[in-house]
């Protein structure tokens, strides 16, 4: 057995011999019975190992793995859905809080954009001039005229008194005094 070249046996079996060593070892194999036997035995062992190491897992292994994968998918879906819902809720909350913080400015803008409001209690129609267009008060007609009747032979003098309100009319009524001797009429004290 050539010691130097026999050292190359393992590299030869592994296939890691350099090219120049491979040719030298090939020549050595022709002369070295031990190395030839080792190479043959190793080839046989490799074949036997490949044939023998054919154990199969239990039939349930794949089923267990697939079940685990399904569970994992479902768990991932739940986590993703929960996170999405939480994110949406967070965004909605943030939007509400943001709008609440912006409210004063928004109110001012809305008031400004609103049309001017007519004073309450005022009747508005197309014939009524708008406030600010004129300062003339519209004429007010008395709701129910007051009728005072006197005896047919009575003679009175009516004297209107100016008032602050256009709805109130005051008229002083003076009876006309006629003397039997046909004197000129004189003013009498006013009636209540």
């Amino acid at each position, binding site marked *: 057995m050539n010691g130097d070249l026999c050292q190359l046996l*393992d590299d030869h*079996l*592994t296939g*890691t011999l350099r090219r120049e060593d491979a040719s030298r070892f090939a020549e050595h194999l022709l002369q070295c019975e031990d190395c030839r036997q*080792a190479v043959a*035995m*190793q080839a046989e*062992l*490799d074949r*036997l*190992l*490949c*044939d*023998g*190491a*054919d*154990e*199969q*897992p*239990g039939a349930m*292994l*794949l089923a*267990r*793995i*697939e079940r*685990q*994968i399904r569970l*994992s998918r479902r768990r991932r879906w739940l986590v993703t859905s929960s996170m999405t819902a939480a994110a949406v809720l967070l965004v909605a909350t943030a939007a509400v809080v943001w709008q609440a913080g912006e409210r004063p400015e928004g109110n001012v803008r809305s008031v400004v954009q609103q049309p001017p409001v007519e004073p309450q209690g005022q009747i508005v129609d197309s014939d009524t001039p708008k406030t600010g267009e004129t300062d003339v008060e519209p004429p007010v007609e008395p709701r129910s005229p007051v009728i005072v009747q006197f005896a047919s032979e009575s003679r009175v003098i009516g004297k209107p008194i100016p008032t602050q309100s256009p709805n109130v009319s005051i008229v002083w009524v003076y009876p006309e005094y006629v003397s039997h001797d046909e004197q000129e009429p004189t003013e009498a004290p006013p009636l209540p």
Partner: protein
Amino acid sequence: MNDLLEHHAAAVFRFALRMTGDHHAAEDVAQEALLRAWRKRSGLDDTRATRAWLLTIAANVWRDQLRRAKLRRSESLPADGHASREPSPLRTVTARDEASRAVALMDTLPARQREVLYLFSCEGLSLEEIAAVLATNRDAVKANLHLARKRMRSLWSNAKNETIRTNQKRP
């Protein structure tokens, strides 16, 4: 993913069996490895390296399990700290044919030699791929492979001689 499982589950299981030496433990390792592979499938960019990638995950799973359970055997062993196993009686009895006997002998090798020999001879991985699977370097793989093969040849030769002697003793 179903293709991945169907094509490689058996190989992952066999490699796990070489590492653990126990059928149930190997199934647990294979299951965990394939689940991890499914979770990390986006990281697999080279489908040609799928098997080496899966075996790497299986090796990591086994290392994690060893670390967690502190199952490292106390037997003094090679530098990598893995222990060898004696062939179990059941295995010896059931190893009827030569192939089974060869596998039984392989299972008596120290763990690292066993793993390297299996990956090289049965899975056809290169030294570099084995180094990646086992998280070691190419020279260590090569050294372990040489030791494993030398020991296997010795064991195989002894087993054959024992068989011959046994047959000669029979009347």
